[in-house]
Structures are given as structure tokens and as C-alpha cells.
């Protein structure tokens, strides 16, 4: 009698254990990513497609946009913005470039990860074309220009007058090789 009751309790508790383990993967991780995207945290850009509203360039406002670059630890490339800062009007289409040079004797693949200051500016910063959307391979010794096209949203809160966009460049050569091996199989 007591044994049956115990088994019942244990069964319920085991369900809780499994549920909490699953909770980490199916709730916490997606929820975190969703929240970051919704709030523009940690450079996560919104998955929503941005519709360009050409007629509505807001000439009355000037926003300073600064560009910064850092190399993640162990990343030997030369990497930085060609234009370190520009003044833009909300709604206007702007083009800037970064440059990168693989100074090593090996072919490598890199991935740039963005981050914004202030972080809430992320959701008002629409990249229509960006080198950060995909991995960037460079042969040994090669160099390249990395273009980016962006529009600052007309709805950018009035108190934001300066946006700093920082790219961290990571070496993903090994990760890339592993992924290719998987897709070729």
C-alpha cells in the first residue's frame, strides 16, 4: 500500500525532473533568443522583413553612426571600418564598408557578430545588405572590402542621436569545415 503511494510520488517527481531538463532546451534557449530579438539585446537583429519607405526620409534629424571593430581572441586578421563614422538621416539608404585582410598563411573563414550601443537602437537599425549575414572566406594573404547597406528607422526614439555599431570578428574556420563535412555527407 505504502509502496504504491511511493511509486506514484516518485513517478510524478521524475516527470518534473525530465520536464525541467527539457525546459532548458525548449523554453529557456528559444525564449532568450526571442527576448533578445524583441528588445534588440546583444546585437540580435529582428527577424522581421523591413519594408523600405523611400518617401519618408526625415531630413530634420541627423544621426551620428560610429563604426567599431574588434577581433575576438585568437583572430589574427586585419579588420576595421573604412568609414569610422557618418551622419545620416532616418529613412535614407546608406552604404559603408569594412575591410579585412587574412594576414596568415592559411585559408580561413570568419564571421562578424554585431553589437549596438545603445542596445535598444538595434531594433531601429535595418541592414538591407551586410557582410555579417554570412561567413566570409578569405584565402591566405587575401584582402577584401566588406560592404554594408543600412537604413536608420524613422521611428528611432528622439533621445538617440548617436548609434555605435561594433563588429567582433570570430575565426570559424573549424566550424565551417565541420558544417561542410556534414552537408556533403
Amino acid at each position, binding site marked *: 500500500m505504502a509502496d504504491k503511494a511511493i511509486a506514484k510520488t516518485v513517478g510524478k517527481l521524475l516527470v518534473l525532473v525530465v520536464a*525541467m531538463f527539457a525546459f532548458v532546451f525548449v523554453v529557456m534557449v528559444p525564449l532568450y533568443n526571442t527576448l533578445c530579438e524583441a528588445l534588440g539585446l546583444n546585437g540580435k537583429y529582428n527577424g522581421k522583413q523591413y519594408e523600405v519607405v523611400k518617401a519618408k526620409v526625415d531630413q530634420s534629424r541627423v544621426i551620428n553612426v560610429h563604426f567599431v571593430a574588434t577581433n575576438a581572441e585568437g583572430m589574427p586578421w586585419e579588420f576595421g571600418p573604412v568609414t569610422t563614422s557618418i551622419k545620416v538621416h532616418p529613412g535614407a539608404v546608406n552604404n559603408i564598408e569594412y575591410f579585412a585582410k587574412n594576414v596568415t598563411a592559411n585559408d580561413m573563414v570568419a564571421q562578424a557578430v554585431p553589437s549596438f550601443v545603445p542596445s535598444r537602437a538595434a531594433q531601429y537599425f535595418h541592414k538591407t545588405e551586410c557582410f555579417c549575414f554570412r561567413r566570409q572566406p578569405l584565402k591566405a594573404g587575401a584582402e577584401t572590402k566588406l560592404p554594408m547597406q543600412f537604413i536608420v528607422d524613422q521611428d528611432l526614439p528622439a533621445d538617440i542621436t548617436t548609434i555605435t555599431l561594433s563588429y567582433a570578428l570570430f575565426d570559424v574556420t573549424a566550424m565551417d569545415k565541420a558544417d561542410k563535412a556534414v552537408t556533403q555527407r
Partner: protein
Amino acid sequence: MGEHHHGPAQGLTRWIFTTNHKDIGTLYLWFSFAMFILGGSFAMIIRAELFQPGMQLVRPEFFNQMTTMHGLVMVFGAIMPAFVGLANWMVPLMIGAPDMALPRMNNLSFWILPFAFAMLASTLFMDGGAPNFGWTFYAPLSTTYAPKSVTFFIFAIHIMGASSIMGSINIVATIINLRAPGMTYMKMPLFVWTWFITAFLLIAVMPVLAGAVTMMLMDIHFGTSFFSAAGGGDPVLFQHVFWFFGHPEVYIIILPGFGVVSQIIPTFARKPLFGYDSMVYATASIAFLSFIVWAHHMYTVGMPIAGELFFMYATLLIAVPTGVKVFNWITTMFRGSMTFETPMLFSIAFVFLFTVGGLSGVMLAMAPVDFQYQDTYFVVAHFHYTMVAGAIFSMSAAVYYWLPKWTGRMYSEVMGKTHFWVSFVGFNLTFFPQHFVGLAGMPRRIPDYALQFADFNMMSSIGAFIYGSSQILFLFNVIRTVTSGRKISDPKVWEGAQGLEWTVPTPAPYHTFSTPPEVK
């Protein structure tokens, strides 16, 4: 044969195959003491290095391994198993159960622990050294930049997590199903109540920890990018997952301690516990709040202001149920016929020092000022006031309080009191100055420091050596009690003691409550 009263088997196999809650409790307690000495010796190396500024004894890499291993061994190896051992011994005795609900699983949950810690300790001898990323093992320090031994660390965490989960399921199953007739929930001793709630916390968050280390394992070996920004993941996610486990974990560590002092203070104040019901509700509230405050450990990661405020207010709210508890303990002592045996001394010191730790906790909870305190020795001082003066002091109190019941022998009161006073002085000498150096900006986990911190650090180190050596006295006192302490046989060891555990003979026989007692 049915009436044959069988005692324990003889020799080593008794301990390996035992399913007796008292044997397993004893195993847990000795194991945790061994881990306490191991983790303590790591702390001694840390304090010896910090005795003077400049690099003195160890290399910085090894220093990092010491801070990491000290934290891991103390949290997972010393404090948690110690309280599980205490629960094994006392919960059945306190609720009138013949044994734990799942005796064989009980055996398993203990015996996988030594393997987990052997695996963890073996990393010290590996190429590249032991884990060196701090006990909080933040990614990417613990993934991209980790030593090779990190995989052993991950499996050790998996095993000790499994052990904790099994132990907790056992405790919950015991409390729900095996209470003696008449032992309603609101009649359960507070130690049982606090463990009941702690076990639920463990069952809820140990799988989260397992999830966190599993994600690390996958990032390191299977090419996923949960915590790697390069692959679209986020290192800050690690901190959220870790602290979602980590904050309830700190209450897992302290709640059983609350339970212990709630047993001891009424005994030596010779008054029933003041506000029993409010104690139960306060414990449950603390447990609930522990799930919604985790990000106060990470105010500086760049959260939106609304997040900072939410976590700040939720954290400050915890001071209310904790205040209720401290109030109740003090009110229990108020106008009581107090005597000051060793368990009572440790319990009073617990109330006093835990409150100090609680107050520095309130300071740390304030988001705006936390930006200054973050990652300094102020944090180290805070959590040692709660974990050492909280968990370890209450554990020492518990051992002195119940040791006569377990062994049928009385410990040496003189040695016990000496242990207490040396511990008390040593502990405060170690950690009180750390508040000052922390506020002045000394960062934690760094093997060297600026010259202006030299005096306080030397005091800290001397205090640590005093505190450490007092534990040798403790060990000696316990061994002396077990082997040659004065024999006692009164079931009620302490004059003012209440509860079912004091109705069984002294020493507690191998099997108790084979027929359940009637609780009025």
C-alpha cells in the same frame, strides 16, 4: 526468524551494500567532511598566496584552479552532501518512519558521489590542469578557452546532479508517504519542512544545471553554438541558465541550515519555536522568490533598465521572509531559560553572522551600487558570511546537537566550545576585512593585489589558518567522542529537546520505528 532482530552486517560490505538510512547518513557525513578538508586545503593555498602581495607560492594558472576547485568542492562536495546526510539520519527519525522510502536508491545516490569527486579531483593531475574558470564556469571561459579536463568536470557535474536528484526524490517520497499516523504537515519539525522545500528546489533546478553543462559539452565536442557568438549563440545565455540554477542553489544550501537552528534554539531556550507557521510560510516564500531573482548576479551584463529594476525589487523582497525568520529565532530566545552548550553557541552565531551576510546581500541587491561591488571581495565576504557562517556553522551545530543521539556518547563540551570560539574568531578575522578591501576595489579571483590591500589580506590569511585549524580540533573531538566519549543512555539527551528523535533509545538503534509511533 521473522522476530530475529538483525543489526548491521560486519566489515566493509556493511557500508557498500547498506540500505539503512542511518548508515547512509553516516557515509554522507564522513564523505562531506573529507570534501570539506579537501576544499579547505585549496582555500589554505589561496590564502597562503594572498598572505602578501606579489606572486609568492603558486603560478597564477594554478591559483585559478584553486579558486575554482575550492568553490566546486565546497558547494557540491561538502555542504550539499552534508545536509543530505543529515536528512538521511534525521528525517525518518523526526517523522516516525522506519527508513527512507527508497532505500536502494539511497545507497546508489551516495555511492556514485565518490566517483564524481574522484573524477573531478583527478583533473588536478591532468595535462593543462584542473578547471580554472571559476565555480560559476561562465562560457566561453569554460568552453572555448577551457582546459582539456573540462569534459571530466562536466561528467562529474552530471553524476553529482544525478545523486542530488535521487537523494531529493527519496526525501520527498519519504516525507509525503511515510509520516507516522497523526504527523500532519503542520506538525512536522522545521528541519523536515525546510528539507521538504529544499528537495523540491533541487528536483527543479539540478536538471537545469545538467542542461547547462550538456550544452557546454555539445559546444565543445559536437559543434553546436549555444554559447558561441561566432556561431550565432550567446555567452550571456550561459549566465542566465547558470543563475536560474544558481540562485535556487544558494537557498538549497541555506534552507536546511535554517531548519537545524530552528530545532536547536528552542531546545536550549527551553521554549517552543516562536511563529512555527510563519517559519513554514517564510521558507516557502523564499523558495518561490528564488526562481525569479537570478539576474541580480548579472546586473552588469547590459540588461534593459526594466529588467534591472524587476530583479532588484524581487531580490529586496526576499529580505522580508528572511527577516521573519530572524525575528522568530530572536523571539524564541527572548525570556527563555537559555543555556549555552556548543550547539546553541553555533546556532546563535549563525543567527548573528547570517544576518550580517543578509545585510551585505541587501547592499548587493541594489542594482546601481552593485556595479561597484560586482566581482570584488565584497561579494566574497557576503557569500562566505551566508555559506560558512550559515551552512557550515549550522552543520557544526547539528553534529554537536545530534552526535550524542547517534553514538550514545557525549562529546567534550570544553573542546566543543573551544572549537566554536576559535572558529568564530577565525571566521570573522578572515571574512570581515574582505568587506573593506572589496569596497575599496580589490577584485576577486586574482592572485595578486595592490599594496594598499596588504594589511587586510594578511589578517584574512591569518584568520583563514585559524579557522582551518579549528576544524582539525572538530575532527579530533568527533573521533574521540565516537571511540571514548562518556557513555549516555537517556533518550532525551538535552533537557529541553522536543520531537520524535528523542523518544528512541540512545544510541539510536539500527532499526527504529518499525511500528510507527502515534503522534498526538
